[in-house]
């Protein structure tokens, strides 16, 4: 049966758009840092330095980097799920603190208590790192509620927006549907971002969803919707910047479906037999890092040597984070009784 009302336009940007070299080099550096960090995390997981569920971000770098680079983290907030290393790096958390957290060391951002799924940095307005599918969606709606409240009740001039990342699997939780209605009714400045990497664990989107383009769900809540090419970091950045302006100017939540792909298994223990090599390769050909690099070379903003220097620099940063984690102390066992009540 033909699907109804499923035609959406995918927002993308050709070439470098209006951006200057310095800014794009920074996006390229951040994405490369995430890629190298994840590769190292996988390696250290293999050596059993890291345990448990470890969900890697390879392939999705443009989403966190593009979106978060459009924010002002003095005022804006970011929440995401357990696949959070990329977001943590993109908000500017120290690679050392993230790697140490993966190692379960006391110098980790969550003092060795959270691990891979629970990166937090309150100062940088990064509120996790949530392990329960969809659980960050109502919370993000709540931080946006506070942003509205600070403005309307407490007279604050500049209060920002909340960016809420979640997966294509999370969109079927009641939490999503309840939250979007609340946000629409109370006009909350929250941007809901579906990181649509085509799978929730081993389940392809079409097997569990009546629609494949999530943008159309916005209609039911009478809020703006948008679809963005998530393999193009410039498109993600420009799209989220526009959305951020709209959320503030029109006092509205926005739902954005960002099409992306995860290269690795769901977590380290998943061999990902449910998809074809061809599909993976098709996305790897639009690799967000390679795409940006090629675009910048075309625009004569960068050459291979310059890129190599960026790559060497981030590799150094990543290696240092491993060294830092290795040399950090285990948390004293008594700290298990800490961080429970305020």
């Amino acid at each position, binding site marked *: 049966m033909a699907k109804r009302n499923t035609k959406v336009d995918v927002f993308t940007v050709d070439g470098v758009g209006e951006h200057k070299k310095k800014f794009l080099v920074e996006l390229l550096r951040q994405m490369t840092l995430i890629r190298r960090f994840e590769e190292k995390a996988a390696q250290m997981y293999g050596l059993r330095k890291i345990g448990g569920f470890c969900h890697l971000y390879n392939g999705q770098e443009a989403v966190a980097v593009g979106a978060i680079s459009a924010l002002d983290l003095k005022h804006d907030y970011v929440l995401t799920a357990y696949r959070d290393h990329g977001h943590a790096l993109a908000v500017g958390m120290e690679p050392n603190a993230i790697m140490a957290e993966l190692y379960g060391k006391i110098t980790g951002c969550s003092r060795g208590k959270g691990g891979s799924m629970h990166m937090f940095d309150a100062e940088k307005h990064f509120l996790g790192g949530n392990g329960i599918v969809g659980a960050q969606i109502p919370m993000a709606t709540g931080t946006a509620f506070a942003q509205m409240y600070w403005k309307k009740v407490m007279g604050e001039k500049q209060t920002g927006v909340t960016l809420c990342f979640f997966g294509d699997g999370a969109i079927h939780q009641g939490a999503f549907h309840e939250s979007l209605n609340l946000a629409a009714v109370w006009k909350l400045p929250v941007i809901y971002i579906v990181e649509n990497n085509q799978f929730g664990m*081993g389940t392809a989107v079409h097997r569990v969803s009546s629609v494949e383009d999530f943008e159309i769900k916005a209609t039911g809540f009478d809020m703006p919707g948008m679809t963005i090419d998530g393999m193009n970091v410039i498109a993600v950045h420009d799209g989220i910047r526009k959305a951020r302006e709209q959320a503030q100017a029109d006092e509205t939540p926005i739902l954005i479906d960002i099409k992306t792909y995860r290269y690795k298994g769901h977590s380290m223990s998943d061999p990902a037999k449910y998809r074809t090599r061809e599909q993976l390769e098709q996305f790897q050909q639009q690799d967000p890092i390679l795409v940006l690099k090629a675009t910048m070379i075309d625009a004569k903003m960068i050459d291979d040597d310059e890129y190599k220097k960026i790559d060497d620099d981030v590799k150094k940063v990543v290696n240092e984070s491993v060294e830092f984690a290795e040399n950090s102390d285990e948390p004293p*066992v008594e700290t*298990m009784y800490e961080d429970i009540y305020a």
Partner: protein
Amino acid sequence: MAEISIRDALNQALDEEMARDERVFLLGEEVGEYNGAYKVSRGLLDKYGAPRVLDTPIAELGFTGLAVGAATVGLRPVVEWMTFNFALLALDQVINNAAKMRHMSGGQLNVPIVFRGPNGPAEYLSSQHSQALQSLFVHIPGLKVASYATPYDAKGILKSAIRDDNPVVLIESEMAYAWTGEVPDEEYTIPLGKADVKREGSDITLITYSKPLRMVLEAASELESMGVSAEVIDLRSLRPLDEQAIYASVRKTNRAVVIDESWPMASVGSHVAWLISRNCFDVLDAQVELVCSEDVPMPYNHRMELAVQPSVEKIIDASKRVLYME
């Protein structure tokens, strides 16, 4: 007799019951094409197809409630929760609907449904993914709750649960799916509500259920080498609770340690310890001890997470206290 894993014992039970009764169906996240997050449902989609094996969206409240509805009109669903941590999203349907329909309808309705999945800590998973949540279910009249830690018990209890006309919550453990043991070739069931003496002894009773059983049996062997004969009771069923089995053992040994991997407040362990104190007061030679998790959310760091949970050492220490061996 064949030596199989708990995973395979559960798989056999599901397979046999689905073959026996076409009202039985299985639903949950990744139970079909992926063969189950922990491979308990391996091969069942191939054999029975949809809609008898259903991969659900990640929507615990919705698919659990759907199954409760289907059960109310006569189907016999088995709901697999990927873990009990995620079952928290479905609690309303379990507690307000499944557990209440019979009572609120004055006995007109039955809800023959099984909810099962791994509960309790595994390894390196931090606070949201390492919770032993059985107390939430055990608290609720209208539900039955049971557990198993051997393949024999797993198969027999799951089969009985599927045939039971009430909602039954079954507590499994990720760490125990690979544990092996003997299972008879011929068909059998194990009635709900019955505890099992896993080891006979005369000096002290160690009472436990679910995953800690293995650790408790290890502690019992160590105690033996110290000249102490420990009896090990596996409660298996938590609601109803086989109180007589507990009292019979404690009346023999006069000493009891309860081992429960959940938190101490309002737990199965604390309840059993209270029952013993109250009903065996006249025969007790020492206080009843409870070995449980530290009263903290689970940290990710492995050394800390081991320190949080019961251990052979903690069981032996508690046993020594009630045996005045210190």
